[in-house]
């Protein structure tokens, strides 16, 4: 066997490359089709780039005095995110329990619950806010409602997945000693899921702070309102103060929340 000439050895067939080529072809097709559809052109970007640099130049330095003026709006943004997350997290609990297939074993219950969750998660938060603004008028209320609904989708989905992956030992033990369903949930499920749940709520809060910062663009309260106001009057130094302020607050809250989450899990 060892003395056979090289070409007589039994090499395994190399795997077919057809699939790879096909994938690459489809991706290229998608790429160019989208580029055409969106009128993407490098030359536009190159031509327009000086405009953007000009804009960025006008943004520097930020108007430091403006910070004081937008502080109430920033606090309002944080309040909106807090309330939205809280309400959403509370409403998410029963929905998450209903969606977990190891709690509710009946297909007819957990499947519709998940379906509703999926639908909720398909609608972007800013769209929800725009719709609520046209229902309730301008203000923080539509913003809070939009964040609430958005949080329900996120928290409930993450939580039901956590519930489905819990250890079944304690649950079996409780069933064996004759616990009823409520006791079963309170003493078997919740202690196992609680750290995950709190961690997901904190994570949702981080996401909501970011979302709340731009909700004002559609009139749903918070600091986003000032983007329109300053950009409309070409006061770009004020716009950059808003951006900077938002960045600082978001990074700070992210930092605190991440530390808390690390402690939890």
């Amino acid at each position, binding site marked *: 066997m060892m003395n056979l000439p090289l070409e007589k050895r039994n090499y395994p067939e190399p795997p077919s490359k057809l699939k790879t080529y096909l994938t690459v072809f489809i991706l290229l097709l*998608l*790429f160019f*089709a*989208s*580029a055409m*559809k*969106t*009128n*993407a*052109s490098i030359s*536009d*970007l190159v031509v*327009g*780039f000086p*405009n*953007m640099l000009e*804009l*960025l130049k006008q943004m520097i330095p930020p108007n430091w005095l403006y910070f004081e003026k937008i502080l109430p709006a920033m*606090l*309002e943004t944080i*309040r909106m995110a*807090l*309330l939205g997350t*809280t309400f959403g997290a509370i409403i998410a609990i029963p929905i998450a329990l209903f969606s977990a297939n190891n709690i509710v074993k009946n297909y007819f219950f957990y499947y519709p619950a998940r379906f509703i969750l*999926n*639908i909720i998660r*398909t*609608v*972007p938060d*800013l*769209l929800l806010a*725009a*719709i609520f603004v*046209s*229902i*309730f*008028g301008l*203000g*923080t*209320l539509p913003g809070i409602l939009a964040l609430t609904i958005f949080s329900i989708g996120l928290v409930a989905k993450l939580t039901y997945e956590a519930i489905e992956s819990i250890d079944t030992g304690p649950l079996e033990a409780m069933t064996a000693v004759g616990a009823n369903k409520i006791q079963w949930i309170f003493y078997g499920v919740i202690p196992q899921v609680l750290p995950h749940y709190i961690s997901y709520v904190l994570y949702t809060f981080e996401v909501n702070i*970011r979302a709340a*910062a*731009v909700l004002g*663009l*559609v009139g749903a309260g918070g600091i986003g309102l000032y*983007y329109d106001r300053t*950009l409309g009057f070409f006061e770009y130094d004020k716009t950059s103060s808003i*951006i900077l302020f*938002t*960045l600082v607050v*978001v*990074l700070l809250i*992210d930092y605190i929340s991440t530390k808390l989450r690390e402690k939890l899990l």
Partner: protein
Amino acid sequence: MNKAVITPFKPRKNRIQRFIIVIALLLLYIWTFSGMPIAGVKETAGQISKAIFAGIFNPDWDYVYLPDGEDLLRGLLDTLAIAILGTFISAFLCIPFAFWAAANMSSGKAATNTGKFMLSFVRTFPEIVMAILFIKAVGPGSFAGVLALGLHSIGMLGKLFAEEIESIDPGPAEALTATGATRLQIIWFAILPQVMPGFLSYTLYRFEINVRSAAILGIIGAGGIGTPLIFALSSRDWDRVGIILLGIIVMVTLIDLLSGYIRKRIV
């Protein structure tokens, strides 16, 4: 040695800690609720929400396809194109950043930390604000949306890619180093094959997010389905709002299903 009576006692520190947390939360919520104006609900609220619901269940089907353009299908296609191109751009642009931020690829902690900080900076910059800036550069339209999504997604994709690179098996890379391969060869033959499935899966995941984002970019004039939706909302054309919402829900659901299926196949 009776094991049954040994009960673990609760540490005292834990109780004090819990007390502090409860007080802090209480103060936080008092602050939150005290600052909220009790907004009066408009009397028309019920009427309008009824109209929107009626619109959703009784949508303006004629809007799905109009021969002269500006219809639902074209809006959705535009949104999809923005998401696809934006994802492509960010998936390529983020690779150098990912290698920069990955702890096992960069030399020294300083390089890794600056790379990670840059990525998180990009991540915190809201895409809608980026879109406003790009509109100033290339004018309103889909291309501004593409650029905004492309730039914003670098933040998250770069972070996920870097984590993927950090979790590779160092064996193949070491073996290649031992045979005298250049750095580029090591990346091409040892690292990329290992991280490729992860990269693709994260890119698809980001694509799902980008489809949702592309749907809202139109609110500020950066193309996609958001623009007709805002027009319909402001002209109180609830049937049209209904069909657009329905269109977005169907599109996002289909994309999620498809992308989820492919991701399962890849990993």
